[in-house]
């Protein structure tokens, strides 16, 4: 069995989004519950969150943006720059804790203390741009982690796989000119789904051209199409890139019971995806893979999805 880290902190529940918002603390409770009831907690190495060193937030986000976010939060505003981004007085601190926890997890994996890990965090991150909060996201968790791996540990090839049903516009844009980070995303087709980016013809820019790959999936499609696209697009991409580390933006909102999308994935398909990613990690990265929670809003399905996800990491 692998030494699998599990980042979870009750303080992640303090970020409140008000009524009529799907990104609620109960999501995380459901994730935790699934792992606990699956009898997996004892097998995992628990990691508690600590606030991120600001220098790593600055490695991704504009100084002015960080200031705006903090000031808006301290002023006890309920919204940050768009009605999608509902917040409370604790949101800024919680966002810092999430990033801090992920960086500590990455440190432990790089130091050889852990083989892999799952980070159950809120708020999510992949829509957050350098200078803009979007789609429930404030700090781009996965992007900060990738920058940390590059700058603190000198990694030259970080692979990011984003299987949230929405395209990770923030992550793509942050690394689109960086040949050291390969961003792969599979998501509902941008003509039909938020945020309207992640089209098949977006391949990165400048030196980063060819290090971005998107697989848009049409509404109504399910397991078969999703698997086919991962095999067709992701497999050869990583075979060529040979990542030294795999980061996963794990969104569970393409599930057929999740009302945030029109994609019809089964619970089994999510297990299949994670098995492929762990398999790729074993082939290319010596097993180093960290998965970070993004979306996923079906409180009924999140427990089983999280349990299976973690079990696959444990079995390596």
């Amino acid at each position, binding site marked *: 069995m692998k030494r699998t880290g599990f980042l979870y902190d009750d303080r992640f529940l303090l970020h409140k989004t008000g009524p*009529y*918002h*799907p990104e609620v603390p109960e999501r995380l409770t459901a994730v935790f519950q699934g792992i606990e009831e699956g009898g997996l907690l004892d097998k995992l190495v628990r990691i508690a969150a600590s606030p991120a060193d600001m220098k790593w937030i600055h490695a991704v986000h504009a100084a002015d943006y960080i200031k705006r976010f903090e000031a808006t939060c301290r002023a006890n505003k309920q919204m940050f720059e*768009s*009605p*999608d981004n509902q917040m409370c007085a604790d949101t800024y601190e919680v966002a810092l804790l999430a990033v801090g926890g992920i960086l500590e997890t990455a440190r432990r994996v790089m130091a050889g203390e852990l083989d892999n890990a799952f980070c159950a965090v809120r708020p999510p991150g992949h*829509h957050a741009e350098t200078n803009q909060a*979007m*789609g*429930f996201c404030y700090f781009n968790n996965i992007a900060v982690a990738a920058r940390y791996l590059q700058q603190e540990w000198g990694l030259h090839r970080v692979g990011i796989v984003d299987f949230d049903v*929405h395209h990770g*516009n923030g992550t793509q844009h942050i690394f689109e000119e960086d040949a050291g980070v390969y961003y792969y995303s599979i998501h509902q087709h941008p*003509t*039909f*789904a*938020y*945020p*309207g*980016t992640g089209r098949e013809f977006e391949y990165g820019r400048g030196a980063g051209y060819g290090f971005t790959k998107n697989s848009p999936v*049409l*509404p*109504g*499609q*399910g397991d078969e199409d999703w698997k086919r696209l991962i095999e067709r697009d992701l497999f050869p991409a990583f075979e060529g890139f040979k990542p030294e580390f795999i980061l996963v933006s794990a969104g569970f909102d393409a599930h*057929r*019971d999740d*009302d*945030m999308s*029109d994609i*019809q994935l089964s619970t089994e398909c999510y297990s299949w995806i994670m098995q492929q990613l762990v398999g790729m990690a074993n082939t290319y990265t010596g097993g180093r893979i960290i998965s970070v929670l993004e979306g996923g*809003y079906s409180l009924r399905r999140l427990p089983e999805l999280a349990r299976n996800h973690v079990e696959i990491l444990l079995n390596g």
Partner: protein
Amino acid sequence: MFVSRSMTRKVITVNPETTIFEAQELMAANRIRHLPVVVADNTLVGIVTDRDLRSALPYRYFKEGISPAETESLKNLRVKDIMTQKVITIPPAYTIQDALMVIQNSRVGALPVVDDVGRLQGIISVRDLLRAFINVLGIGQPGTLLCILVEEKVGQLKRIVDAITEMGVSFGSVLVARYWDENKRAVFPYLLTQNVAQVKKKLQAMGYELLDPMQWYIDQLPEEERPPEKPKS
């Protein structure tokens, strides 16, 4: 939605006496395909296109080049000799829809925009129109597309717009399309939010049928081009 807001104002022009070699170089240097031809006061007298130039110059000119003798024989050829004199133009007060219809009917790639005394004000190309329509559709901004099936009767769109507005959600655009059933319309609001599940629930509670936009698209296809039916969960 007016042409004057979407057109290119700094137009690169030539005069009737410009040589075709100069015209060709101007096009290549600026990566454009249309050169309005003007005289004093910026009065439009013609237009020359890359196609006109290609017809006037030997094919080899664009590949390996032409001999000094050929250059000599062509150097006196002027824009006035090859330009189109009956130019299809539009006034600045035209809407971009007007421009779209004119382009569709005339099959040109760009329209000079002239004032009522014939002076060149700008030029609008297919490219400019595409940009304007991306803007109109709102697809440059993050959002989600819904498809709502409604009975064709007065006040439906208002109910939908009111219901969505009450939830504090902004619109990128709203398109209305004919549905296969002649008494129905498909309404496509493009909403500037990720949080659409609540909106969908509310609209369903109001009695509207929400369609998978893809299903709408597939149903528009001829029978033989439709993908096989898939079991829905």
